[in-house]
């Protein structure tokens, strides 16, 4: 229960810090909105694209690519923003598992909120009919959870190793490719309004990847933070 208490306190602290500055949230929101707007402007150059046959596919893929880069930007900060002495202080008062769990859960909350807002903004600019809105919404939530779990662990590794953006991209993209393939498959099924039972396999794989990543992070983070 000590772990639970510590995790809860650390999450509260993360949310409080974010609430005071609103830096990560506003920054990433602005990033998403401006990316969507740039895409909107660029696509509106070619008239008639919105009615063409490939439009729904491009719509879906573009959304996930925007979300991918937004979450890399949002989560890469999670270990960088902490100063070295503050991290040292956490390590004396909390267990390493509590630290990685709190970071992961906080990132999940942040990414869920951001991706819902991003979806709303995206749908305002790019009109598209979704066959199964509830399931699409669910796949967006699952996507933000998966991005958060993977990127939190990778950013912990990258922050120990010199902390540059290149390393973060190199380390995370091979891990995230299977996730994003499953997500695009899942959301494409939801967009066309196919029967939900067709997507259970993808859901299962995503769940399995999340379980593996969380389990390995819990096992490995205690070794990682000790300098």
């Amino acid at each position, binding site marked *: 229960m000590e772990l639970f208490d510590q995790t809860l306190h650390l999450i509260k602290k993360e949310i409080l810090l974010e609430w005071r500055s609103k830096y990560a949230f506003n920054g990433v929101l602005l990033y998403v909105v401006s990316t969507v707007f740039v895409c909107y402007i660029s696509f509106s150059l070619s008239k008639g694209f919105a009615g063409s046959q490939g439009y729904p596919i491009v719509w879906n893929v573009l959304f996930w690519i925007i979300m991918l880069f937004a979450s890399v930007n949002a989560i890469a900060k999670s270990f960088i923003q902490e100063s070295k002495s503050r991290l040292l202080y956490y390590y004396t008062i909390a267990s390493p598992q509590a630290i990685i769990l709190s970071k992961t859960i906080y990132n999940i909350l942040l990414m869920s909120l951001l991706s819902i807002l991003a979806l709303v903004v995206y749908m305002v600019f790019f009109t598209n009919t979704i066959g199964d809105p509830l399931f699409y919404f669910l796949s967006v939530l699952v996507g933000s959870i998966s991005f958060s779990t993977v990127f939190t662990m990778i950013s912990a590794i990258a922050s120990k190793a010199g902390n540059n953006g290149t390393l973060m991209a190199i*380390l995370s993209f091979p891990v995230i490719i299977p996730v994003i393939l499953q997500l695009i498959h899942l959301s494409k099924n939801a967009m066309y309004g196919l029967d939900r039972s067709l997507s259970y396999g993808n859901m299962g794989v995503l769940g399995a990847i999340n379980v593996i990543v969380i389990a390995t992070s819990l096992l490995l983070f205690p070794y990682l933070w000790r300098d």
Partner: protein
Amino acid sequence: MKLIYQTWWKVLAVLLIFSTLITGLLFPVPKLAILHETIRNLYFHVPMWMGMLSVFVISVFYSVKYLNTGKEEYDLASVECVNTGLLFYSLGLITGMLWAKYTWGEFWSGDPKQNSAAIAFLLYCAYLVLRNSIDEEQKRAKISAIYNIFAFPIMIVLIFVLPRMTDSLHPGSGGNPAFGKYDLDSRMKVAFYPAMLGWSLLAVWIATIRYRIRLIEYKRNSID
């Protein structure tokens, strides 16, 4: 670690590989449409992956040992296993591509199995880049050990789980029967199982030689 200095299993590896060269190329195989004689690639393609897998498992084992003890030798063993594993990985990809040219028509046809294998290859290349990005030796050993343990289950999911769930042409995936189901008869097993064992032992052997060279270099560079 005494085993790596013994000779008997190295002799066994050589004998097994030479025996598969004869049994694999000369023994009769089932006659199947499309496959024809390319079915013999089974004796050379699958053992490469088996060899890769065995050295990667050993590498994860030594990464875990490194994290528990902090001995530099374990880190050297783990990185040399990954280096050897990548060699066998490339050989597995190349033998697969050659086979694909004669059965699927293209060296690279974007099959899910091929794509997953390419992504997992990037995963292990990232391991080497990560190692090179850190100068401090102990920190490098620790972080690369952590990444190695993290990457291994992802690699297993990518190569052995995901392609089975999609429409892959690769035998054993996407509803296609594996070779074991319908045509791996007892005659093929005579060549197949020794090949699996032989190439795995060879991979371990190469890894141990590389490890011993690294160990000598490490001892020469150390101050005492």
